Every structure is written in C-alpha cells, then in structure tokens.
C-alpha cells in the first residue's frame, strides 16, 4: 500500500534528478555566450563607457576652466568699470569746476564790459552836450549881433560884437541844459 502511494512521487523524481542532457546543453550554450560576450560585447561597452567618462571628465575640466576664466574676466571687467566710474566722476567734477570758473570769469568780464560801456556813453554824452552848448552859444551870438544891427541900423565892429555877445551870454543861463545833459 505504501509503495502504491509512493509510486506517483517516484515516477516524478525528474524534478530533483539532474538531467545530464540539459547540463551539457547549459554548459555549452553558456560557454558559447560567455565567449561571444567576452570577445565582442564587453570590451566595446567598456571602451564606450570609458570614452564617455573621459569625455565627461574633459567637459567638466573645461567647464571649470571656462568658469575660472569667466570669473577672472568678470573681476577684470568689474575693476575696469570701477576705474571708468572713478574717471567719469573725476571728469564730471573737473567739468563742474571749470564751468564754475568760466561762469565767474564771464560774469566778471560782463560786469567790466558794462562798466566800460557806461563810461564811454557818459563821455560821449558830455562831449555831445559840450558841442551842443558851443553851437547854442554861437547861435545866440549870431542872433544877438543880427538883432543889434537891426535895432541900431549900423554895422557893429569886431569889439562891439564881442562885447555884445559876452553880455548876452552872461545874461543866458546854460546851467540847466548842461545839468540836464549830465543827468541823461
């Protein structure tokens, strides 16, 4: 009875009995796979990975170098910018100072010009006034002589003319005209 129960199990011992044929197939197929992978696959993949690693390393180095260069240039540019700003400030300062000086000079010159023009105008007025007064005196003298000759119906000699003119001029007051001209 026991053997009858164990018969099915015994008949299924293939599960734990190594199949020699499969063992041979396995080792052959595995060995062929190993041979091909070792020869034609692993070296290529290894080389590709090494190359990529080298490329990446190179790119990292180059990026680090570029960054250093960029930082150096940035520093340089900042320095130059600072210098340029300082120079610009200095130029502006100098320009401002120069403008102040020029303004002061121009004002001074203007003031001098005005004063000079005023003096010149005064001189010209005085000359013109004097000339006008002389003309007026001469006119008065001529009129006086002419009036006297008509009244007396005789021609006055030179001494009478001079005496008459001086008397007439003494009686005329030119001070008002003279002072008015000065005021103008």
């Amino acid at each position, binding site marked *: 009875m026991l053997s009858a129960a164990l018969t*099915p199990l015994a008949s*299924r011992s*293939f*599960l*734990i*009995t*190594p*199949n*020699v*044929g*499969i*063992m041979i*197939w*396995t*080792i052959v*197929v*595995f060995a*062929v*796979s*190993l041979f*091909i*992978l*070792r020869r*034609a*696959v*692993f070296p*290529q*993949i*290894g080389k*590709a*990975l090494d190359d*990529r690693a080298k*490329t990446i390393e190179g790119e990292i180095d180059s990026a680090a170098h570029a960054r250093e260069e960029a930082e150096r240039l940035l520093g340089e540019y900042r320095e130059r910018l600072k210098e340029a700003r300082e120079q610009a400030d200095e130029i502006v300062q100098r320009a401002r100072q120069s403008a102040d000086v020029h303004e002061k000079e121009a004002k001074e010159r203007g003031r001098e010009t005005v004063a000079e023009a005023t003096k010149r105008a005064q001189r010209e007025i005085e000359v013109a006034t004097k000339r006008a007064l002389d003309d007026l005196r001469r006119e008065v003298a001529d009129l006086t002589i002419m009036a006297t000759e008509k009244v007396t119906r005789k021609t006055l000699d030179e001494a009478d003319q001079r005496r008459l003119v001086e008397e007439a001029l003494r009686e005329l007051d030119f001070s008002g005209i003279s002072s008015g001209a000065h005021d103008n």
Partner: protein
Amino acid sequence: MSAVAGAPPIAPGVGGAPPAEKPGMSTARKIGYAVLGAWIGGILLFVVLFGVTAHKDPDVANNIFSPVDEFKLDTWFKIGPISFNKGVLYLLITAGITLGVMLYISQRLKQRPGRLQVAVEWFYDFARRMSRENLDEGMERKYFPLIATIFVFILVTNLIGYIPLPVNSGETFKVFGAHIPSLQIYAADTNVAFPLILALSVFVLFTYEGVKHHGPIRYIKSLMPGGVSGPIVGLIFPIEILSNFLRLISLTVRLWANLLAGHLLIAFMGGELGVLVGLQLVSWFLLPFGIAIFMFEAVLIAGLQAFIFAILTAIYLGGAVESH
C-alpha cells in the same frame, strides 16, 4: 411644480463655506471597484453554475494528472545522441536574446544612448561594480566577463520564464488538425540541471583559484575562519569543509527552488488548484492571488535570483584568493 423645485441652485461657496469637492470617484478607484465587483460576481456565478460540490476529473482522481508534470522534459526529437526538449529550447532562446541584444547594442553604441543602450550600460556598470567590490584587480579583469555573463544569462532565463509559450507537449490542443502544445510558463532553471552545472562550474573555478593562490594545503587551511585555535579546530574544520561543499548545493538549490516554487505557485493560483480539488470556484477565487504572485516573481525574484547567483560567484572567487 413646488417652490423648492423651481428655486435657483445655491452657488457653491456662498456664505463663507469653502466650495465643495466635485462628487464622484477617481478613475482608478472606479476600475478597482469594477474589478472587485467582477471578481465577487464571478464567484457567485461559479457557485450558481457549478455549485460548491467538488467534481474531480478522473485523471486527477486516479493521480494521472499532476501539475509538476508540466516540468517534465519530454524529448521532442533527436539528432544522434543530442536530444531536444523544451529545456533546450529555453536555453537557446535565452542565448539568442542575450547575444542578440548585447551584440546589437555593442555594435551601435552611441555617445547619446537610447533606452536599450542605457539599460545595457547600467547592467554592465552594475556587474563591474559587483566584481570590483569583491575581487582584486587581476581577478576582476579575469572573472568580470564570467560574472556578468552569469548575471545576464540567468536574468534572461528567468524573465522569459514568465512569458507563456506553447511548450507543454504533455497537454495539446488541436488547431486545423494539428496538435499544438498548450501554453505554459516554464524556465530552464526550473530544472535542477541548469543551476547545478553553473554552480558546479563556479565551485570548480573558485577551488582552482584558491589552490593556485595558496597551494593545496594552505587553501584547505584558509577555509578555517581566522582566530580559531586549539581543540575547537577539530570541530570547526569539518564544518568549514562541509560548508564549502554546501556552497555548491546552496547556490544550486536557491536558484532552482525559487524558480520552481514560483512557477508552481503561479500555476496553482492561476487555476490548477481548482482542477486538483475539482472545484472551478477555487480557480476563480485564487486568480487575483495568482496574478499578484506572477507580478512579484517577474518583477522581483527574476532579477534578485540572478543578482544573488552572480554576487555569490564574485564573493566565492574573491574569498578563495583572500589571505586570512
């Protein structure tokens, strides 16, 4: 019509209250409920249609049918002494996919890789790190290809083991008169021969390296852990010798048992348990668990077992030449 029914709707958020969330479920939740409903409805349907009384198939009752029979290697044809079966087919598919993908990628390596190249490069880098961490430079250069091949070969073997293929020649179905093997998920390493020969190769290699590096006597002595002296050596030494040989068995059984148990579990949960107990309801009831185990096995176990085998190979090889 009532006054309430004719009243305008109250705007959300009126009166300081925050606007209420849109009523209804998310799409994922809807799908979840629909699947759950279909599953429960299916259970009820099976109860109504087939009842809850077991009706075993005569083949099952007479012990003619067994789920493990799927893993039997029936010879399909022979060429001289070489016989072909589904184990051989899976080995050839494994080699074809492994070499095809790896050769395809290695011939088209680009500076800017595509997805497949990224995956292959990730695998290569992972295997390389695994080797470097456990082996010295000379050993690493020598054994990296072996470790990487073990990793990828077992990984591909495991992964294609979760694709249903018409390889179950024990159970066939007819299409236009032709007997087509029924679909099955099978992996070459569900046969103990596959992991055994690989483990045996690893065992021979690390023993060879150990003997080459230390000499035969010193190698055997190196199996002893450091700091053990005195009479306890007599006790520890046989254990260490035994554990050295047990590496061969543990390496074999870990891979084989995990894969075989995983495939059996998926088969049981995917319907075979229902066939064994003669109750269709059980098959339907266990189906979600079968899908969950399938996902777990395919996503985690396939990669994990390949990784464990490969890293243990690296550790054993590294340990063999290590000086205590």
